[in-house]
């Protein structure tokens, strides 16, 4: 019996070893077979299993040319159409053989555009590559990798939004690498701290912008002063529209100031708060406006600041009372929902600030304060209801206790 068990166990272990130890090669072509055995672990043949081209049925010859059925490298080099490894300066054109071919792409991936090369040539990267033969600038493989290219929808892809800041930062955060270009290298560090970076990298909010959402993908370039509000306005449409109609727009244009960036910064955009608005030292508006200039603009700033502060106080007060009611075990679901509505109004009021007109803010602030006050009153009523319950309990308890006492005395008399 023992022998049978031992043999069975050994067979099991052998089976586990067979199935668990061998990593199958991603493809059985001669190219992969040879390269897999002769290259380092991060070589092309090791990576190709995750590549979208390989997964779509394309093989090595589709990019590199040659006959993959041959098992001798020299014979492959001599075979028809062999292109080998492209020079770095040739990579964009190398990839565009297929990616700029509308007919070919339509057969393989109809949803993909075919203007990548065209856009790339307008980008800073593309222009430096073409004009200055700068071999350090980013080409297709710098962002997409050469042999593990994945769709931007896949979490392992270098262009998956949460991975993208690292992909760009690979060059742009490298001080030594960027030294000759004379541009800052703290973008990644700043972005990581920004409201966008926290949303994308910490909370995994794929709706938050990565580098490409502002700078573009293949046509990557710093947004110019004129186009900056258009870039921000892609997501912050209401704020952008309000700003366009505000007195600030012509003033900024006249002084050559970038629209959104002047107040919010660029890579390190912080979560805005009501305290930014005001004329006291350190507050944002005080950068340009003086507290004692008696102008309408300064009066408006103070009015907006006061309005937002009042709404904030009313909301906090309502939330505090509601928390108290909830802590007493009262049901506050409806009131919590109402408070969320107040929060929504507060967001709208903050957006309205971008019109830079106190009169357009006032109705929103008043609406929010009225609703917050309503929530507060309901919370107070709930707390009063709780006190009433305790009072009712006291009365009922006294009544029951007296009845019990009477019964107890009756029992004593019976004994």
């Amino acid at each position, binding site marked *: 019996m023992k022998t049978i068990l031992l043999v069975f166990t050994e067979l099991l272990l052998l089976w586990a070893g067979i199935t668990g130890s061998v990593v199958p090669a991603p493809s059985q072509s001669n190219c992969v077979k040879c390269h897999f055995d002769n290259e380092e672990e991060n070589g092309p043949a090791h990576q190709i299993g995750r590549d979208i081209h390989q997964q779509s049925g394309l093989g090595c010859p589709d990019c590199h040319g040659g006959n993959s059925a041959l098992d001798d490298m020299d014979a492959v080099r001599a075979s028809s159409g062999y292109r080998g490894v492209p020079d770095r300066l040739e990579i964009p054109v190398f990839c565009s053989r297929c990616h700029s071919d509308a007919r070919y792409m339509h057969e393989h991936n109809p949803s993909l555009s075919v203007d990548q090369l065209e856009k790339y040539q307008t980008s800073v990267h593309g222009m430096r590559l073409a004009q200055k033969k700068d071999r350090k600038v980013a080409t297709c493989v710098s962002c997409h990798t050469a042999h593990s290219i994945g769709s931007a929808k896949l979490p392992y892809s270098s262009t998956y939004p949460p991975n993208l800041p690292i992909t760009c930062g690979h060059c742009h955060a490298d001080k030594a690498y960027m030294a000759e270009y004379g541009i800052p290298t703290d973008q990644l560090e700043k972005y990581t701290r920004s409201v966008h970076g926290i949303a994308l990298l910490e909370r995994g909010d794929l709706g938050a912008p990565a580098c490409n959402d502002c700078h573009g993908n293949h046509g990557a370039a710093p947004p110019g002063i004129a186009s900056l509000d258009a870039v921000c306005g892609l997501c912050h449409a209401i704020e952008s529209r309000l700003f366009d109609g505000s007195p600030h727009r012509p003033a900024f244009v006249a002084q050559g100031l970038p629209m959104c960036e002047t107040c919010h910064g660029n890579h390190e955009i912080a979560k805005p708060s009501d305290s930014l608005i005001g004329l006291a030292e350190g507050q944002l508006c005080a950068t340009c406006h003086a507290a004692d200039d008696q102008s309408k603009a300064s009066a408006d700033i103070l009015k907006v600041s006061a309005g937002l502060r009042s709404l904030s106080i009313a909301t906090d007060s309502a939330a505090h009372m509601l928390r108290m009611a909830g802590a007493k*075990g009262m*049901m506050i*679901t*409806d009131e919590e929902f109402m408070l969320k509505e107040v929060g929504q109004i507060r967001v709208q009021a903050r957006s309205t600030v971008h019109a830079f007109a106190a009169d357009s803010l006032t109705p929103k602030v008043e609406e929010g304060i009225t609703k917050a006050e309503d929530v507060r009153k309901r919370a107070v009523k709930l707390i009063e209801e709780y006190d009433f*319950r*305790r009072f*009712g*309990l006291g009365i*009922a*308890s006294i009544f*029951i*206790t007296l*009845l*019990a006492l009477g*019964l*107890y005395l*009756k*029992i004593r008399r*019976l*004994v």
Partner: protein
Amino acid sequence: MQGPDPRKKQSLPQRLYRWADTRFSIGDLVDYMSHKTVPIHGHSIFYYLGGLTLFLFLIQVGTGILLLMYYRPGADSAYESVRFIVSEVSFGWLIRSLHSWSANLMIFVAFLHMFTVFFTQAYRKPREMTWFTGMALLGLGMAFGFSGYLLPWNELSFFATRVGTGMVHALPFVGDYLMQVLRGGDEVTGATIGRFFGLHVAILPAVFTLVIAVHLLFVQRQGMSEPIDWEGKPQGEKKTIKFFPNFLYRDLLLWLLALNVLALLAVFFPDGIGVVHWPLGQKADPFTPPPPVIRPEWYFMFAFQALKFLPAHLLFIEGELFGIIFFGLGGLIWLMIPFLDKNSNLNRRSPVFMWFGVLVVAFIVVMTILGYLLE
């Protein structure tokens, strides 16, 4: 010469009694009850547990009827109606809280009642049928709890019911069919609420009322069980009190105290406390992921935890099925105790069964505690 009119000397209750007596001969019943006695000894306090369970059941009947006036079964209305009850209906919160607290306390007191009967061997001849009906009542009480748990149709109750009803799936041959019968389909849906509602407010109350009537009839006919060591004691040395009014008044006193405690709990902890809680929370949504902690009512926790401890396969069968068979056989042995414990029928102590009882209590307590500690 006419004598004084006897009606003029009688108080209103006396006149009412005379009125009823002349029509229904209730004097016979009072006479019977006044001759009935209750033994007095060191464990007499246990005699009150049955009455206390009955009182808590009556509270549930009363509050349940009031809840029924506003509750609307159905996936689109159950949660909303319970929310309406606790937030809009006058004293609705109190009624729901009293209903839930009395349900939990009733199961707790019923368990106590069962174990005190077990350890005093009060199940012995001639009270086998009283033991059986009592066990049936406990089972029905737990079924009340299980069916009522789903009715608010909130997140926790939905997922706990899905796990609970899913367990019967492990039964061979009939498991799949039984699960479909319970759920009214493959999944827990609005159809399940309909079934559980019908069970909770019609079928179970009808059966429970019938069984409790039989149980009380047995208790009244056979009286309270005397301690086993009273066997052979001279009648004169047996201390007793009259059932009516002495015992009944004490029972009433305890009911009043229980009512006070219930009111206190309902006001200060309307949603329960600790592991015994029933917050309404979010409405059930079958498409959302289950909450991190899915737990049944506390009185199912020992079985739930024991089943969780079981491996996927044990011996030749699935772990879950093994658990169901284990609890099924255990329950059967527990039920048949009056017949298995031969010593008790001879009015002798049974150390083996006493230790068995201790083991069962320890198992339930340890598994329940582990259930909450390990979740």
